[in-house]
């Protein structure tokens, strides 16, 4: 068990080190999410409610995550580096978990900027929204990482990931928007937690099959 | 026909349109398969003779 987690840690550390060294993904996600919020300001006509802006926040989060997920396996894809990891004796699901953790880390960094920016540009953010974002992040990264691994196997990989991901992201958006606008966010948060649990388990269990050539 | 009947007829037409379309696609596929089998038979015959 501890061996499993030390593999996950090793792999996630590697992703972090790569990101710190090359700085490709996180700055792009930051810039994208802030740009998206500015665009949304102009997309919402005067008199639109704060609730509409909250909906836009979720659109921004999903697409920012998509940006990060699209980059998730770039290092491994170039020069077939995934082979190197698949040859290693570690459990293959550890590769998925490590990648999920690193993408989650990048997304959280982007949101640490995006949420205050949203509060300044539009309206304040309450605890329920933050809880919703945290729970949604887990689901987005768990499912998204698996789908990103699927997409890199295909020819049109940049094109494929959004198509695979968005239908699966609809329930996340429902849970997230519900948590930030409804009077009783509890049931929406519960729904997000359910989504996370269900999809994290099947993503974890199926990653091995996805990378088998 | 009343509007009501039109909608019902449209719904049924859609369903059967789909089934018929499917049938057409299958017929096209069948003719392709037939052609391929013909080619292969020709090939096999040539082999036997040559």
């Amino acid at each position: 068990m501890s061996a499993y987690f030390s593999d996950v840690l090793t792999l996630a550390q590697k992703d972090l080190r790569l990101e710190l060294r090359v700085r490709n993904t996180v700055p792009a996600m930051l810039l994208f999410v802030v740009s998206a919020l500015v665009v949304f300001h102009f997309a919402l006509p005067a008199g639109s409610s704060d609730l509409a802006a909250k909906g836009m926040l979720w659109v921004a989060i999903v697409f920012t995550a998509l940006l990060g997920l699209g980059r998730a396996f770039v290092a491994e894809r170039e020069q077939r580096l995934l082979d190197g990891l698949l040859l290693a004796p570690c459990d293959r699901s550890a590769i998925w978990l490590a990648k999920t953790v690193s993408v989650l880390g990048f997304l959280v960094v982007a949101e640490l900027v995006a949420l205050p920016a949203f509060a300044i540009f539009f309206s304040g953010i309450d605890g329920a929204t933050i809880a919703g974002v945290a729970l949604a992040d887990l689901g987005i990264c768990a499912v998204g990482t698996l789908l990103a691994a699927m997409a890199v196997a295909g020819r049109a990989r940049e094109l494929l990931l959004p198509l695979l991901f968005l239908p699966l992201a609809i329930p996340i958006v429902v849970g997230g928007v519900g948590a930030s606008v409804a009077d009783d966010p509890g049931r929406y948060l519960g729904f997000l937690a359910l989504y996370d649990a269900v999809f994290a388990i099947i993503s974890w269990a199926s990653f091995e099959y996805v990378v088998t050539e | 026909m009343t509007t009501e009947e039109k909608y019902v007829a449209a719904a049924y037409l859609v369903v059967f349109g789909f089934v018929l379309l499917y049938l057409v696609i299958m017929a096209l596929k069948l003719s392709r398969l037939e052609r391929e089998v013909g080619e292969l038979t020709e090939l096999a015959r040539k082999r036997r003779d040559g």
Partner: protein
Amino acid sequence: MIRARGLGRSFGAKRVVRDLDLDVPRGGFLLVTGPNGSGKTTLLRLVAGLLVPTAGELEVDTTRERVGFLGHEPLVYRELTALENLDLYGRLYRVPERRERIGMLLERFGLWDVRNERADSFSRGMLQRLSLCRTLLHDPELLVLDEPFNALDEEGSSLLDRELAELRPGATFVVATHDPDRVEHLASDRLAFA
């Protein structure tokens, strides 16, 4: 060690390896030759467990942590240094006394002085040496080497000659090469793809 019966692998409609029977005993050395695109690489990837067969059966009597694979790609992260790359693999393979072993290999393959330089500054030959370090790092009992002499200069090649001769008694080998004369004297079995 390796036993294949009717082994086949196709990519799409293309059958790259077909109906292959193979027996390599423990301690054997299988030399695989053949022109480009004849299926050498596919066979090696099958043996290393990177591909699953689409026909027949293949038994490789070892575990993943005892296989060393050297492919066309060096399988190192370009943005990490030589030392960081080997450290990553050393951790994943749980190599005992990791630092000492890595240091010893880097020394032996003449990469010690560039150990803290990023792999993307390396030449093809240096990458091949680094890749050899990676392959040998965990002391594998089955070595699957695809064109191991590729891109190596004369010095590197004789280094590898010496290394192979040293490892020969203790390990099983599957080696694909364009230059069979170089390892001919080591081989116990031969397989030529047409």
